[in-house]
């Protein structure tokens, strides 16, 4: 049976790659390989996963330099006999393949991600027309599950610590297009503030890397357009 060489990051921000050899199988994902190393070769290897089927987003890692969901990445598709696996980029490393995602999550808050409503339980449910232009735009952005892949793919995030990043701004975009959201002005102010949408270079790495094909690039472009229009219109949001 032929073998696959797996280079796995060990340590935290300081550390090094350690080579492992695992049997090449007919069907195996990168997550299968990491699990096999942990179970059969080094039980001290730390990594995250939960669902194994591309629902939860917790197994995201850098695979051969690209952020991927390891459970949805087949070794075969990499077309390489050496696979390099590292923790997600642009996040502090805790141990081995585990990153500290708190800064990433905090940025969601800074981008005004909290839904506000003026309605209460006595009100009838809001009637949102699924074919309305605003709802279509929100729907296009709303399936994000916070896996952090786009954040790891973004060069602007790596250059500018204050930049809120594609995931947080994508969330802001889905909120300002939600007609039930009563805090649109606050969300818009946050999304166009210092670390906001104006920092995006429209390189599209987030869009290329998103495992479910969302386009934070388009969402951020929408925020830019909206914020420029509001500034030109004389108000701040």
């Amino acid at each position, binding site marked *: 049976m032929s073998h696959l060489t797996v280079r796995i990051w060990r340590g935290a921000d300081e550390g090094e790659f350690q080579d492992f050899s695992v049997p090449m199988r007919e069907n195996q994902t990168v997550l299968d390989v990491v699990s096999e190393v942990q179970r059969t070769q080094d039980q001290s290897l730390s990594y995250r996963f939960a669902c194994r089927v591309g629902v939860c987003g917790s197994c995201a890692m850098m695979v051969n330099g690209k952020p991927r969901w390891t459970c949805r990445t087949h070794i075969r598709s990499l077309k390489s006999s050496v696979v390099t696996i590292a923790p997600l980029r642009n996040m502090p490393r805790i141990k081995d393949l585990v990153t500290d995602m708190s800064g990433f999550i905090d940025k969601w808050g800074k981008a005004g991600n909290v839904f506000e409503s003026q309605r209460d339980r006595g009100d009838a449910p809001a009637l949102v027309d699924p074919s309305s232009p605003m709802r279509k735009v929100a729907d296009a952005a709303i399936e994000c599950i916070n896996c952090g892949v786009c954040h790891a793919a973004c060069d*602007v995030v790596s*250059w*500018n610590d204050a930049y809120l990043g594609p995931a947080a701004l994508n969330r802001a975009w889905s909120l300002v297009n939600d007609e039930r959201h009563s805090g649109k002005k606050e969300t818009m*102010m946050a999304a*166009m*503030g*210092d670390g*906001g949408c*104006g*920092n995006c270079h429209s390189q599209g790495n987030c869009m290329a890397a998103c495992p479910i094909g969302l386009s934070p690039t388009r969402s951020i472009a929408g925020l*830019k357009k909206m*914020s*420029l229009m509001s*500034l*030109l219109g004389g108000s*701040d949001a």
Partner: protein
Amino acid sequence: MPNPMFEMRLYLLQRLTAILMLPMVIGHLATIMYATRSELTAASILERTQSSPWLVVFYTGFVILVSIHAPLGLRKIMGEWLRVSPKLANRISVLLFLGFLGLGLRGVWALTGGTMS
């Protein structure tokens, strides 16, 4: 920053200047072709361009737009690629603005008949 919209206003300013400069760059390229048709010396170029008040107006506007646009772009590059602190990047950008404006308007002055010495 005292105003949370400071960055966004600069962003807007840079985009607006870019939009205005786009046709002017084409006009500038056309002027270069016209001005350097034959001899490539300051005297011969000025001979062709100095008589036009339209060019003075055109280049005054162009110089002002460039002086705003370019330092804003360089300011971002300084921050993102060279890791210059925001405060220092702001100061350098203001100096660049004044430098571009001074040098540019000095050139425009030559178009009006002022000497280039």
